[in-house]
């Protein structure tokens, strides 16, 4: 009996924390990068040690970039967290749906104006209807990784890949990439030079590379049929056509695993295993290479683009307070700590994410030397338009990409369909 009582008491303590202690639940989604995860854990430990009265409980919950089902149901049932790590480009959407708390009153209480402290694009992403719904943390850039040994073995002069020469033209790049394609006796691909839609080869990457714009703020219109975006999708269409869409797909599904989210262990990435010679991805690839293939001879250069256009785009995260948070004041203190100078500096060192604070922007010393090229891309990097239909737009652009790489639709038609589906939803929010 006594033992049972003790058990009950322990359980209660576990839930409410020791007497006089404020417990804060901090959730992050299951698709979070393991190194970033480590960074947050370290910061939480530090915060907990600083103030024993406020204790953060960090929990990993199911959730991906556009899927916040767990968060939504938890908030509705009153069991939501106090702090959530939300993909920044979806803040506007979640704010519009009423899921997030307006941070204005807390900022006001603190009496500090933060809008000038953060990188412009990152700050814009946490604003919806002129209100602040989160604080930006972490950003990244995307570039082209290439395997020097594979290229040399195929007799290719690496001079074309020198960043000093600027981006390669798409035609030249394709010529090089196709030299590395190999097939087996049955005609199936066993190696490809480059697959433009692998990893970060989203429509956004190629749309920006070809000088496209995805949103027209003046008219409040999504612009997937912008000529640059269409050209980017045409690039994908033709690449798939020349590889043979079916054969290319079998290759991708063999070595990449469908769908890409979460099912492929990072050590089996085709770039690490030498199945592809080049990969478009972000700086988070650097520690992965270091960990699993430390001897890989690789380089990093600009994403190929017409007319020498230097392009990249940046994403990142934000810390938000969902509706119904039990301890919003303490939660806000925690968010300020993590997104502040000390927090972002430590996080950068552990995870390799770039800080979103202007005061840390030039700090190359936070990163190993191989990050330098990615840092240099920040000034040219664009960001996804922060729209209340961000997740829908993302998914529909992905659908269009799939239609294009299977050659089942022409770019123009596929992108036209995106506009037709997304614009009415966007208009809906104008009221």
């Amino acid at each position, binding site marked *: 009996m006594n033992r049972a009582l003790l058990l009950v008491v322990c359980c209660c303590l576990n839930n409410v924390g020791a007497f006089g202690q404020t417990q804060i639940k901090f959730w992050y989604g299951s698709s979070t990068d393991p190194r970033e995860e480590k960074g947050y854990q370290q910061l939480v430990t530090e915060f907990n040690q600083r103030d024993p009265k406020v204790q953060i409980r960090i929990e990993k919950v199911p959730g991906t970039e556009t899927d*916040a*089902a767990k968060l939504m149901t938890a908030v509705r049932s009153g069991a939501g967290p106090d702090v959530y790590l939300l993909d920044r480009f979806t803040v506007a959407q979640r704010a519009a*749906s009423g899921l997030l708390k307006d941070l204005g009153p807390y900022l006001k209480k603190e009496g500090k104006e933060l809008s000038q402290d953060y990188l412009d694009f990152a700050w814009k992403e946490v604003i919806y209807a002129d209100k602040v719904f989160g604080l930006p943390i972490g950003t990244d850039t995307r570039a082209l990784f290439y395997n020097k040994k594979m290229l040399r073995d195929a007799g290719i002069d690496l001079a074309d890949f020198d960043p000093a020469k600027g981006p390669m033209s798409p035609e030249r790049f394709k010529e090089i990439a196709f030299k590395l394609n190999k097939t087996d006796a049955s005609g199936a691909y066993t190696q490809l030079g480059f697959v433009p839609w692998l990893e970060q080869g989203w429509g956004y990457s190629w749309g920006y590379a070809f000088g496209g714009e995805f949103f027209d703020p003046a008219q409040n219109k999504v612009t997937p049929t912008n000529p640059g975006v269409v050209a980017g999708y045409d690039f994908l269409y033709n690449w798939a056509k020349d590889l043979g869409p*079916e054969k290319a797909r079998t290759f991708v*599904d063999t070595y990449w*695993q469908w*769908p890409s989210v979460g099912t492929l262990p990072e050590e089996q990435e085709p770039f690490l295993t030498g199945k592809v010679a080049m990969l478009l991805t972000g700086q988070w690839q650097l520690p992965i290479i270091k960990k699993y293939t430390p001897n890989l001879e690789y380089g990093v250069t600009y994403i190929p683009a017409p007319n020498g256009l230097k392009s990249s785009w940046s994403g990142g995260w934000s810390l938000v307070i969902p509706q119904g948070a039990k301890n919003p004041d303490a939660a806000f203190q925690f968010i300020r700590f993590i997104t502040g100078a000390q927090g972002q500096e430590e996080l950068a060192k552990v995870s390799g994410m770039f800080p979103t604070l202007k005061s840390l922007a030039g700090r190359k010393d936070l990163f190993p030397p191989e990050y330098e090229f990615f840092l240099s891309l920040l000034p040219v990097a664009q960001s996804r338009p922060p729209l209340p239909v961000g997740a829908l737009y993302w*998914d529909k652009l992905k*659908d269009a990409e799939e239609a294009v790489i299977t050659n089942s639709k022409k770019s123009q038609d596929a992108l036209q369909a995106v506009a037709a589906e997304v614009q009415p939803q966007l208009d809906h929010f104008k009221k």
Partner: protein
Amino acid sequence: MANFSRRELRSLFTGLLCVSPWLFGFLAFLLYPLLANFQMGMTDYSGFGDATWVGLKNYQDLFADPLFWAAIYNTLFYTIFAVPLGIIVAILIAIAMNQKVREIPIYRALIYLPSIAPTFALSMMMIWLMNPRFGLVNYFLGLFGVPTINWLGDPHWSKIAIILLAQLGAGPIGLIFLAAMRAIPSTVYDAASLDGASSWKKFYHITLPLITPAILYDIIIGIGLGLQIFVPAYIMTEGGPLNSTTFVALYIYNNAFKYSRFGFAAATSGILFLINALLAISIFRSSKFWVNYDVE
């Protein structure tokens, strides 16, 4: 009430009291959500804040969305093939479990085993088994000269892959069939044997007709589950390739939880409910032509 005697009234009350937990459950967890869902389907609602009444607009948008029709097609395709195939597999399982050999408990456990694994785990495993070039499934088929099939990446095969995966869960229905088979008196078979009936004839003329009540049950349950197919598509394909596995349940999920369109999602669920009810009623109506209740 006038027709009831006091005594009858009292037993009615006692009876109702006895089934009250079920009644409460039905009202609170079935009828109320159902009606609330139809109401929500008439609103514009993000899941938070206030809902605005929009009447039938959600239904208009829904019928105008080509993806909705694709989802309906995918779901019906899945149900129409998965349910009958499921019955065949379950009958085979039941027959296998019904053999009179000493080690039958071991066979039964082995046959039932895949049904214990959660669909989530099976789906994860299937991604590897169905890998176009390294997967065991293609390796095995390759031994018979079947060319490489991209199960999950080819829109022509993706639904079939999910239909095949569903057969791993046929165990529980197999058990129901087994129970139905065991309920058939052995005298019937003995008489048939005396008349010189072959095993096939015994199965076709005795077993099959006498387990039709169980088959009816399975079809109705199967349609309900089939129309709600979600997990494999969510785990393995995310609705792809080319939306060939975007089933209605996934479509509802995406609209509700990814795009915060709860009103729209509720309207879609309403349609799914109507389809389910219509199919179940028509199957039930048809049962008098083919279900045999002779031996009880």
